[in-house]
């Protein structure tokens, strides 16, 4: 195993172990998702709107807001006792740190995304049918792009005096493409349309995720240097 792979694995292991032990972020994001779904349920007048029509948008909004809750905390855990400083002083390339943290965050957010999908399916009585895998793919690509930008900008906002309040202001404008393509694809898949109709969206989500991961890997070193 190269040292790069070993270091990436060590950080992923550490992040997931910490999460398993505290369940801080998964718990917060999961509870947020379920509660948001309940509120959203009452925000729809079912005599005028069919839940199926708006479910995709609500699913994505829940993921974005809930995800921000979890991703925003990434570096607070690290900041205690300056642990991140210790990692930065180790011979670990900064892009390895970024990729590892993005992967760990992605794992968490993807679990939450699937939970959100399940909760909305249950609460809104959606019938996903055979499109469930395609929707899972769309949510996965969306989560990846989101987490990459979120991790990069969480590192920035943690370093400012405004802290977490700054994070949505920085990432929301950038997330517009992800929301547009993600909601578009999810909505059509929920409506039972074939995957072929959304493969353009899926490709754009993939390209967006790729851009976000690459930009983060290159730029992260400038964010964490002291």
């Amino acid at each position, binding site marked *: 195993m190269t040292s790069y792979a070993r270091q990436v694995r060590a950080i992923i292991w550490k992040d997931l172990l910490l999460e398993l032990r505290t369940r801080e972020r998964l718990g917060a994001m999961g509870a947020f998702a379920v509660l948001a779904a309940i509120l959203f349920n009452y925000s729809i007048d079912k005599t005028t709107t069919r839940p199926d029509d708006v479910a995709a948008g609500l699913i994505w909004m829940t993921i974005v807001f809930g995800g921000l809750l979890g991703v925003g905390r990434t570096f607070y855990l690290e900041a205690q006792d300056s642990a991140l400083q210790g990692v930065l002083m180790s011979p670990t390339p900064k892009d390895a740190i970024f990729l590892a943290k993005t992967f760990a965050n992605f794992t968490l957010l993807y679990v939450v995304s699937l939970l959100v999908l399940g909760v909305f399916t249950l609460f809104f009585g959606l019938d996903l049918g055979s499109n469930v895998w395609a929707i899972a793919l769309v949510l996965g690509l969306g989560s990846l792009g989101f987490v990459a930008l979120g991790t*990069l900008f969480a590192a920035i906002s943690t370093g400012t*005096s*405004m802290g977490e309040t*700054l994070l949505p202001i920085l990432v929301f404008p*950038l997330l*517009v493409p992800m929301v*547009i*393509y993600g909601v578009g694809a999810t909505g059509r898949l929920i409506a039972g349309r074939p995957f072929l109709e959304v493969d353009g969206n899926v490709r*754009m989500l993939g390209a967006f995720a790729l851009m976000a991961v690459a930009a983060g890997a290159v*730029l992260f070193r400038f964010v964490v240097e002291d």
Partner: protein
Amino acid sequence: METAGLRRGGTALTLLGLAGLVLVYWMSFFWVSTEMNQGIAQRIFYVHVPAAWTAFLAIGIAALTSGMYLWLRDDRLDRAAMCAAEGGLVFGTIMITTGPLWGKIAWGTYWTWEPRLTLTLLLWFIFLGYFMVRNSTEDPEKGKRFAAVVAIVGALDIPFIHVSVLWFRSLHPEPVVANVDGPALPGDMLTTLLTSVAVFTVLFLGLYLLRYSLESLRAEVDTRARRAVA
């Protein structure tokens, strides 16, 4: 030395731009023919579109100089990025205030999810984030780095925002108004638009150079003051 030359260049360009602006206003008020469907309000177009173009020019310059700043760590590059972003914020503000004015009269609504309008609004928020990040760190050097990252990621994201809002628009047909895709425009309107774009570019660059030299002078005053103390 260096700033004096920049200041002269900036002043010359700004004066040229202001003179050009008089020409643009004359053209758009008296010379160009009135658009058939939207009437007189369409003339806002000749300020609106060039302002938007300038804002995009600004994010381009800001991202480029930010990238070079992260690489070379020369404060002059950071100043160049910051001044471009400031220009972008100003011209972006012109764009998002003229847009609704035009929209209200032409389409009867202040806001429409016209892709270019949406894109510029988001760009405006990216510039806003740039300055919020910059001003909320204790160590100014850190703020410069953070802001540079915001500008670069913002510029990278803009193509994605652009195609996505276009795609979104294609799903929600709205009254098609001005087809601004160049050649479809009647001759005199195109001439006016291109003149205005050129004038706005010159004006932006002039103001940009002036702003940059002001910032350089400020930095020099800081350094001298510090030396005097030490």
